[in-house]
């Protein structure tokens, strides 16, 4: 960019010509009025009046700064109190939600009992089978217990693997899609029912992220993540660990320090799913007939 000033038109452009705005701000930091006033009157006699004006100006400046400081100081406990109130509210509501979940479980148990009493044996068996598959009732059986936890130091900077690309900052932290892969691997290995930290997974379950937390069916989970899966214990465990998702988990363990342990259990118990509400879906015509 050529220099604008006519007196320097023949000279080379200044090396910082493209940064003239920054230079302007940096070099004109002092108000131009000072230089002008100094030019106007070389020796200004300093009367008491001018000193008082300066003192008044400085007083206002000091007053503003002090008021801002005291305001911030006064506001700090109020902000902390509001924060504590919010935390209290969150905890209260969570406790209430837990209570309601308990009540749902109890009522569902009542419903199951009444229903099986009302139905004949054959119907009850079919219903129980449906409940098993849909996650509407508690199940138990042989299976595996898989515990996955974040790396020891979740802030450790890992490699620049693909895990970097997600919103989370810590590479040593298990992410929602890691958990999705693990759960998927368990299903693929032949698991018949899966739960994560006591949350039974159903056909309606979603595993997703909210901030730094993993959320299953709108309930945030805290590590370590304990996955229980019902299936043929040893075979389920082997198939999972040799499958693509098991190897993915192994890679996470090797490269990012994610801690995992898998064990075969003779008997694991999985709770029923909490929310199994179907609002829009309707059975399509008579059973077995598929409308196209």
């Amino acid at each position, binding site marked *: 960019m050529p220099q604008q000033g006519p007196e320097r038109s023949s000279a080379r452009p200044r090396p910082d010509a493209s940064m003239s705005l920054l230079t302007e*701000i*940096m*070099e004109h*930091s*002092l*108000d131009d*009025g*000072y*230089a*002008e*006033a*100094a030019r106007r009157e070389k020796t*200004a006699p300093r009367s*008491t009046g*001018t*000193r*008082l*004006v*300066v*003192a*008044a*100006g*400085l*007083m*206002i*400046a*000091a*007053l*503003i*700064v*002090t*008021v*801002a*400081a*005291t*305001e911030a100081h006064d506001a700090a406990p109020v902000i902390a109190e509001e924060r504590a109130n919010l935390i209290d509210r969150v905890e209260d509501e969570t406790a209430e939600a837990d209570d309601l979940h308990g009540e749902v479980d109890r009522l569902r148990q009542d419903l199951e009992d009444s229903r099986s009493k009302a139905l004949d044996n054959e119907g009850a068996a079919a219903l129980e089978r449906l409940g098993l598959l849909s996650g509407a009732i508690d199940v138990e059986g042989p299976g595996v217990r898989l515990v996955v936890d974040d790396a020891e130091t979740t802030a450790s900077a890992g490699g620049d693997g693909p895990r970097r690309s997600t919103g989370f900052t810590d590479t040593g932290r298990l992410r929602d899609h890691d958990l999705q892969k693990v759960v998927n691997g368990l299903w693929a290995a032949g698991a018949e029912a899966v739960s994560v930290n006591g949350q039974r997974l159903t056909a309606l379950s979603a595993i997703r992220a909210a901030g730094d937390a993993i959320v299953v069916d709108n309930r945030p989970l805290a590590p370590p993540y304990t996955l229980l899966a019902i299936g043929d214990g040893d075979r389920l465990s082997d198939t999972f660990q040799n499958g693509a998702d098991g190897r993915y988990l192994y890679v996470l363990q090797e490269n990012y320090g994610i801690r995992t342990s898998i064990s075969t259990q003779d008997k694991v118990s999985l709770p029923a799913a909490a929310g199994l509400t179907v609002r829009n879906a309707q059975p399509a015509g008579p059973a077995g007939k598929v409308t196209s």
Partner: protein
Amino acid sequence: MIAVLGLILGVVVGFFVRPEVPTAFEPYLPIAVVAALDAVFGGLRAMLDGIFDDKVFVVSFLSNVVVAALIVFLGDQLGVGAQLSTGVVVVLGIRIFSNVAAIRRHVFRA
């Protein structure tokens, strides 16, 4: 001497009287703080440069506060108040830094 007394008086009044800032003026307080600091450091530098002028000091201080508050007020009306106050803080902040650098050169010759 009187100037230093004024400074101390301002701190004392702010600390002990604790004037309530009306909520309407609360957003302009940070801007006023930065403008006040800018004026004080500018005046200090001018004093060390030997060109201090009391009228320029007071007028530039008051006009800076008013203009900064006006910019933020305008921004608030247009929905970009936070961005404009950031701009004011950046510009005045750069001025404060370079004035403090000049004061430092005066005092320490480095």
